[in-house]
């Protein structure tokens, strides 16, 4: 029953976001602030993960492809498709669920516990609209961009690992990248990115916004937000793959 009441409360929170802003300029300012926090704040970790993700992918693919029949270009094709289809959208978003999700839940939880949300409500501001909506919109703007960056850096990481490790030359790697490329994969990856961005931001906002208690509950809300986001991301990943591919 608690699951159904949580789902109901979540849907009510989402519905409550759709009201006329009290001051469009202030809402825009908050949206830009959240976009910068989510996007630029996560740039470093996404870059590092992506490069190493691509590098490890190349090394391990080369390890497994021992047959001399298969050309070296196969390694780069596998790295490309793995990074685009799975590692960039899913793995990066799982990491972002921890980084961004815990930040959103913690921030809103702290605001709830210290009565800052009540202070905004007393002023006549719709806090669901002013606090939650910019986080969701900011995530929808910046997380797909981070996923695109992850794709580029992941593929480049594979190229770097391949050439530095003597696995395959950069030219061979580049030739492989161009072979059998399916553009639909990029589109699919972006569908995943938008879906996961929505899950991360809305679920974390829900848990943070509805914290009741003190510091312990804020920590608990952050943890539950991350766990729930990760589970929903994996579930959505499977469903999207099943229905689209």
């Amino acid at each position, binding site marked *: 029953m608690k699951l159904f009441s949580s789902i109901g409360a979540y849907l009510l929170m989402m519905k409550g976001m759709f009201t006329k802003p009290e*001051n469009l300029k202030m809402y825009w300012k908050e949206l830009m602030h959240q976009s910068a926090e989510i996007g630029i704040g996560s740039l470093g970790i996404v870059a590092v993960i992506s490069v190493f993700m691509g590098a490890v992918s190349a090394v391990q693919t080369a390890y497994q492809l021992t047959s001399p029949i298969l050309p070296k270009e196969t390694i780069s094709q596998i790295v490309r498709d793995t990074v685009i289809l799975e590692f960039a959208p899913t793995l990066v978003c799982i990491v972002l669920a921890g980084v961004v999700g815990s930040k959103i839940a913690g921030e809103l939880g702290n605001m709830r516990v210290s*009565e800052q949300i009540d202070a905004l409500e007393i*002023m006549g501001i719709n806090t669901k609209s002013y606090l939650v909506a910019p986080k969701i919109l900011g995530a929808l703007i910046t997380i797909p961009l981070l996923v695109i960056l992850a794709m580029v850096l992941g593929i480049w990481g594979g190229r770097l690992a391949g050439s530095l490790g003597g696995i395959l030359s950069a030219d061979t790697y580049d030739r492989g990248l161009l072979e059998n490329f399916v553009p639909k994969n990029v589109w699919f990856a972006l569908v995943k990115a938008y879906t996961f961005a929505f899950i991360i931001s809305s679920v974390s906002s829900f848990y943070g916004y509805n914290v009741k208690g003190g510091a312990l509950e804020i920590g608990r809300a952050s943890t539950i937000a991350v766990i729930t986001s990760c589970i929903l991301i994996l579930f959505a990943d499977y469903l999207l793959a099943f229905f689209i591919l």
Partner: protein
Amino acid sequence: MIEIKNVSKSFDDKEILKNISAVMETGKTNLIIGTSGSGKTVLQKCMVGLFEVDSGDIIFDGKDLTTMSEEDRKELRQQIGMLFQGSALFDSMTVEQNVKFPLDMFTKWNHQKKMDRVNDVLERVELKGTNKKYPAEISGGMKKRVGIARAIVLKPKYLFCDEPNSGLDPQTSMVIDKLIHEITKENNMTTVINTHDMNSVMEIGENILYLYQGKKEWEGNNKEIIFNKSARLNEFIFASEFLKDAKDMRMLEEKGIIDNDRNMEQIMRDGGSNLVIGDEDRKE
């Protein structure tokens, strides 16, 4: 003026407020007092619309909050300023940004006009020169004053304060009480203060509502409170050692030795030192 008519509120079958009726008067500091758990904060949150009442009416100068549309509520809320127990300052903003926030949100003023208003209210609460500091960099008393500045920057008609002296030393508490009282008079606001600080009650309690277990137990002012006949209220106010002398005053009044027209401020200041109270006077 705020009228509370037969307000009741429950949480999970537990009745917190039981049929409370009272009037919060304009231009006065109206205090809601009571022990912890008596329902003070719940009553105040019902009055500002953070909680919905189960029954009863809350009327702001003729407009009933309980039957208002969402748009009308929003409009009313812009006439309300609130000081929270923990100040509720926005951590990521400076003092100046905190005080300027309601102006940015609800006015179309240019930047200079907003800054002039911000500087005026900061000067009024004696915080000139702290504009660029963050909440984490200022003391508890200063945070309360920033909270007051933010609450009054839009010149509200109604000011609510939830335990404004919580966590403050006695001297700073008096400064905050005096500030709230002066601002109430200057702007002819209806101020409602939740407190269990007897110093505040005696200093600025122009209209006092005492709650006991969710019910209105007593209503009066700071001149009448010492001479009240409610056993529960007496247990509450005389728990303070400071008012032991006041209890002696009450006994002397009952014996007809003094009368209750005496200036209470003078009595509290003297601690009754100008009266000789012997053991025979203390005998009931």
